[in-house]
């Protein structure tokens, strides 16, 4: 993938020769009140995605979801929060503000947006610069984004 940038480059230096190249962003792990509810939510909104599956529920009630098991054994790991856990407000934190997933075509993206709306979620749509993104929160208030390329040079 090549990335184009609509804004000026910061001028900061590039990578320092780590001796390896990070292959990919792999997965996010979330702690939620009700893992089954969260897993069903994602299964519902991306059910048209090629190969999307819940791989299995194994020890301690963890749910592993992926759409490309051959290359990425999980994209989203949903774990139960510990008893007494309270929510962290992502907007108020220094920390993880959002996790993003790319959908490879605009039609699939629009289906996800429609499913979010069907579920009563009012997603935030951000379009322009060759891409379109939808931002939303799940039942636990965790922030996610799906995005797709809509034109040449589209990038996150």
């Amino acid at each position: 993938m090549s990335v184009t940038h609509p804004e000026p480059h910061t001028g900061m230096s590039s990578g320092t020769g780590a001796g390896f190249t990070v292959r990919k962003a792999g997965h996010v792990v979330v702690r939620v009140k009700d893992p089954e509810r969260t897993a069903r939510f994602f299964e519902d909104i991306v059910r048209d995605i090629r190969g999307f599956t819940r791989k299995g529920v194994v020890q301690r009630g963890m749910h592993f979801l992926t759409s490309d098991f051959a290359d990425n054994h999980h994209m989203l790991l949903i774990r139960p929060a510990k008893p007494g856990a309270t929510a962290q407000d992502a907007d108020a934190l220094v920390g993880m503000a959002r996790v993003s997933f790319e959908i490879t075509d605009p039609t699939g993206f629009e289906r996800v947006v429609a499913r979010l709306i069907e579920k009563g979620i009012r997603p935030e749509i951000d379009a322009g610069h060759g891409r379109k993104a939808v931002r939303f929160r799940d039942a636990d208030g965790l922030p996610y984004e799906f995005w797709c390329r809509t034109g040449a040079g589209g990038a996150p």
Partner: protein
Amino acid sequence: MTGPALHTSHLTLRVADLGRSVRFYRDVFGFADLGTDADGRTLLGAGGTVMLALELARDADAPRPRVEPDPFIGMEHFAFEIAPDDFETLRAFYRRLKAVGAEIHHTVDHIVTNSIYFLDPDRNLIEAYVNCPRERFQAMEHPYGSLESLDDALEGKCLPTWMREAAAAK
């Protein structure tokens, strides 16, 4: 099978000190600075692919994320695959983390992956991992089961499980 595909794209971090975080991720992962996006976020990544977006927090003193073993509802950690089935790369990465003074939280021999969990300057929990060979994990019924420490293997005292099993099978 037809239909759109989906893949993990990137993580957006809200950081207290932009320069510090850029330096950390550049030094640890070798990420390149890929510029800024329309929202003013600093984009970092590898091979021209954005994997991390950094935005400056309005309040640098805002609460930091809670980290295991504290109980919380929220995002626990985010993971990057640093190399396919190359444990020596993970060992080199382990040495790099120590060299830059990163706080290593724990390590795990998941068998399907070998993982190092560490804290970034804002105490976000980040995982760096290498997979076992794909033909091995694709054949596993439940590839996510083990939670044994990887410390000894990273220190060169032994091999990770998948490499021991592969050696025994020869």
